[in-house]
């Protein structure tokens, strides 16, 4: 019988090839699939990736690893600060960057994962983001037409998962993960805790297993904090 469970990140990323388009969940370093990113960084022969991710990691964590290896050809993100190597590659022209409003980025993933190829959104109307895009007015307000995204592989990180691929995320580590899971031709989920099918309450699952093709339990998550802010 078909088994979605794989042993580890190395096995999970099998089939990812140079030139592919990947979606990677996370907001900043929160909820990123750190095990799969590390596994990809360990295969520097995989190059020319287009990565759809809200952010681009920091110099020594997350997507920063892939940037350091020059495995990424193009980033599609809403915000890409906090990363010197990124800045260097972008300014030198080695790295292509497509900046997209965060809500449009989210909706492009969700729409792609829901079989909607294009939609109208108000974000970016009247700005350079709207250049070359169709404008239409609804109820007196202007909207631009945006096309949705699908990926060759979507890589997400969840809190809990089961052997059927059902996922539950924790707190704000949910972010882009569920919608990117929807939009993957193949979707890989790494989870902190993997349980048998039937152990998760079907009412509490965030991502239905139909969207997930491979799943594994990662060990010893670092979960680095970007802006540790505490009160006295």
């Amino acid at each position, binding site marked *: 019988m078909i088994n979605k469970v794989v042993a580890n990140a190395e096995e999970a990323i099998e089939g990812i090839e140079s030139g592919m388009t990947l979606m990677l969940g996370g907001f*900043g370093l929160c909820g990123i699939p750190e095990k799969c990113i590390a596994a990809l960084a360990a295969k520097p022969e995989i190059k020319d990736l287009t990565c759809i991710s809200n952010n681009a990691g920091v110099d020594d964590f997350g997507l920063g690893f892939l940037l350091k290896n020059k495995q990424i050809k193009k980033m599609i993100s809403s*915000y890409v600060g906090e990363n010197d190597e990124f800045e260097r590659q972008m300014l030198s022209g080695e790295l292509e960057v497509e900046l997209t*409003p965060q*809500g449009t980025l989210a909706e492009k993933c969700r729409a792609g994962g829901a079989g909607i190829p294009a939609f109208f959104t108000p974000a970016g109307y009247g700005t350079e983001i709207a250049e070359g895009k169709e404008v239409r007015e609804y109820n007196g307000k202007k909207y631009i037409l945006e096309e949705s995204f699908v990926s060759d592989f979507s890589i997400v990180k969840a809190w809990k998962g089961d052997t059927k691929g059902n996922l539950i995320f924790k707190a704000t580590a949910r*972010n882009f993960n569920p*919608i990117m899971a929807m939009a993957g031709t193949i979707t890989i989920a790494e989870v902190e805790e993997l349980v048998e099918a039937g152990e998760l309450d079907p009412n509490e699952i965030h991502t239905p297993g139909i969207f997930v093709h491979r799943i594994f339990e990662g060990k010893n998550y670092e979960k680095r*904090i970007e802006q*540790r802010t505490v009160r006295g």
Partner: protein
Amino acid sequence: MLDKNGIAKRIAQELEDGWYVNLGIGIPTLVANYIPDGIDVTFQSENGLLGMGPFPTEDQVDADLINAGKQTITTRPGSVFFDSSTSFGMIRAGKVQLTVLGAMEVDQNGDIANWKIPGKMVKGMGGAMDLVASAENIIVAMMHTNKAGESKLLEKCTLPLTGVNCITKVVTNLALLEVKDGAFVLKERALGVTVDEIKEATAGKLIIEGEIPEMKL
């Protein structure tokens, strides 16, 4: 003249009971510290949280619980988590009653520029373009002039735009102004600031009608 906390304090007076509010990075974040007594406001963080609370104590820190500025935070009772598409769904659908943002420039048509300076490293617009294109009530919190002393309230923005015809109010270190019918309408002066000083610092069309009261903080 107001400092950053003063600007935040004045904006906090605009809050109404029951409102959902999104605060941008910088001065806007400070608004949360000055919520008037007796009203209940829920803060939305566009990375997927309604009901944001204060920063955590050391032992409350949770890597999985951050705000849109990537800072560790806490939640209040009745909070809820959701994904990024739901988050911007509620923003675009106008469910967030007030958005407070910083800006590099605003103009008399309500246009705003706050994400890109040509020739400088561009970090991205994050959620700002969605927020300004969606909210019906947007207050800009910023200094009246830039470091070179030039007005940031212009006839027309010179920097790449974040959104058009969207700003409803501007609160600066000098004044509170409404943006209406192609002009900045002066409503209040900061403590000790004269109308002439505000005129001087405002490059866009400025409307001054009657006596302009001093802000009460």
